[in-house]
């Protein structure tokens, strides 16, 4: 990571304390352990580490003046003997000689995110021919703590989403903006961003563009789902279909499906484009299966697994795969992350199914039952020796409030929810094992934490 520090000086000789600015650069970059290298880009600007005590700085200035006095004769200042002298060339032989006594370079160590400096040490840029505007080149290398950048990464995605929606025609942008602003867990974009930090080409802006496109794609599929499921609310707000009618919902979903695929293609990585295109196809194919299976509601575990692999897990897998591909990670790492995403997505869907039976979730209990949405707790309850016969009988008839409430009670009273919870946790354990087989440059704890929190939730 490299860039420039710029500042202006006000005096002919001046000690500019740049310690705090370098500290800030280390903090912003998230450098945990490593080095900061600085280099003066001028022949009359030096670097030094010493004590910031005003009288001592005057001593240094006096020392430099005694060794290379400003009023002395310097051959460098004899312009008649030099070639190609610019018209504004200053007589500054003394400043060049003084700079030779200092250094043009400094390297400071960083430990636990802090500059390693003694109690009295400060870092100075030493102006020897001011006043001028000055530049220092700065490079940081070592181990960067990605976890602490979480807020910044999320902010980048939100900005990118807002930027994309800002340029779209209002009839499509307005409904999508309402959906995006209503929240959502943003797990898919988070996975893209995290995995995009793994390989050698770690570019946060490109990763945010891809992450935002993946979130738009996900939301486009939700808009069509809500029409198909006849859902009236999502994230606490009316669905696009409920608020603006099915025609508008279909058009908005198509617009953002197309826009997201275009943004993904324009990132210019064919592997990324193909991975996400395949995932989208799997999502759409499994939606057809999902609806078809409602005829034999609640279905069985095998059918359920087949549907959620396409409907949910495929986009989680592609989010991880595409981030890793974007970063130039090795094929082994890309494949491990793809499997991690697939297992996590499956576990996430199971955890999401359980939310339908949680009174503290903020959603009406039993909404999935009412809409005959595929649900693993319901499948297990229907198979249960004790409650199964009543569950199956109720699901075979029409589902009013009383029936939905009774089915939810039966599911909660059975072993279905603990069984699903255990299965989801087992899948997360398997996902974590995928990460253990490859080198992830310090990212493993962040991914493990995200995986555990994605399935350990009440809402």
């Amino acid at each position, binding site marked *: 990571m490299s860039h420039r520090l710029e500042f202006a000086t006000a005096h002919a000789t001046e000690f500019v304390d740049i310690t705090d600015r370098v500290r800030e650069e280390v903090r912003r970059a998230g450098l945990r352990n490593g080095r900061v290298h600085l280099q003066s880009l001028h022949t009359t600007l030096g670097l030094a580490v010493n004590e910031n005590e005003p009288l001592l700085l005057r001593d240094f200035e006096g020392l430099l003046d005694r060794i290379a006095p400003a009023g002395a004769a310097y051959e460098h200042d004899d312009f008649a003997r030099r070639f190609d002298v610019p018209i504004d060339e200053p007589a500054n032989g003394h400043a060049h000689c003084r700079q030779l006594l200092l250094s043009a370079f400094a390297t400071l160590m960083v430990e636990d995110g802090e500059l390693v400096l003694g109690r009295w040490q400060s870092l100075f840029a030493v102006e020897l021919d001011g006043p001028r505007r000055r530049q220092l080149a700065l490079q940081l290398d070592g181990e960067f703590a990605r976890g602490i950048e979480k807020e910044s990464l999320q902010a980048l995605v939100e900005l990118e989403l807002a930027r994309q929606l800002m340029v*779209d*025609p209002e*009839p*499509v942008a307005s409904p999508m903006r309402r959906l995006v602003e209503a929240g959502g867990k943003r797990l898919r974009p988070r996975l893209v961003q995290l995995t995009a930090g793994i390989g050698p080409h770690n570019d946060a802006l490109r990763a945010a563009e891809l992450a935002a496109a993946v979130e738009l794609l996900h939301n486009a*599929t939700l808009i*069509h789902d809500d*029409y*198909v499921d006849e859902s009236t609310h999502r994230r606490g707000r009316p669905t696009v279909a409920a608020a603006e*009618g*099915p*025609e*508008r*919902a*279909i*058009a*908005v979903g*198509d*617009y953002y*499906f*197309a*826009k997201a*695929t*275009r943004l993904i*293609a*324009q990132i*210019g990585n*064919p592997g990324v*484009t*193909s991975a*996400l*295109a*395949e995932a*989208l*196809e799997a*999502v*759409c*194919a499994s*939606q*057809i299966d999902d*609806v078809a299976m409602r005829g034999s509601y609640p279905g069985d575990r095998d059918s359920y697994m087949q549907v959620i692999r396409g409907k949910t897990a495929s986009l989680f897998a592609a989010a991880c795969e595409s981030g890793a591909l974007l970063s130039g990670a090795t094929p082994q790492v890309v494949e491990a992350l793809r499997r991690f995403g697939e297992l996590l997505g499956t576990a996430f869907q199971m955890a999401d199914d359980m939310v339908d039976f949680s009174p503290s979730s903020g959603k009406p209990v039993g909404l999935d039952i009412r809409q005959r949405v595929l649900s693993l707790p319901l499948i297990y309850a229907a198979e249960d020796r004790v409650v199964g016969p009543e569950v199956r009988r109720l699901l075979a008839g029409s589902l009013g409030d009383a029936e939905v409430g009774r089915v939810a009670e039966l599911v909660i009273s059975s072993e279905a929810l603990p069984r699903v919870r255990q299965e989801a946790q087992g899948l997360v354990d398997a996902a974590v094992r995928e990460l253990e087989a490859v080198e992830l440059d310090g990212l493993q704890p962040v991914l493990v934490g995200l995986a555990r929190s994605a399935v350990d939730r009440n809402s």
Partner: protein
Amino acid sequence: MSVHLLDRELDRLEGLWSDGLSETYRSYLDAVDHFDPELRAKLALAAALIESGIRLQGVGGRAAPPTTLLMGDLCLARGSRLLADNAPLPVQVAFARAIEATSAAAAAEQAPPALRQLLRKSLTATL
């Protein structure tokens, strides 16, 4: 150009193929002449799927019923995947923009652009 090359790509869409998708596919064959021979069938099918998908969904008209909408979604997704795997980037971008223009017009309740013309033009897109 043999249709059996496309068998895998017609999985789940066999009914649509015999119900008009094949004619739509043939209508694009002359627009893919400038591509490598092994890509032509796939790109013509991609265009046909996207046109059929938009029409199935009822974009710009009356909304399709849910199951038809989902079939339209699958057509769009498969068409996009075929483009992702086989088309140059400018063609992928042009197709996406064609869908954006059509759906934006529908959302604004304006007359949609001529879709087939737009998609045929997309097949000639260059940088």
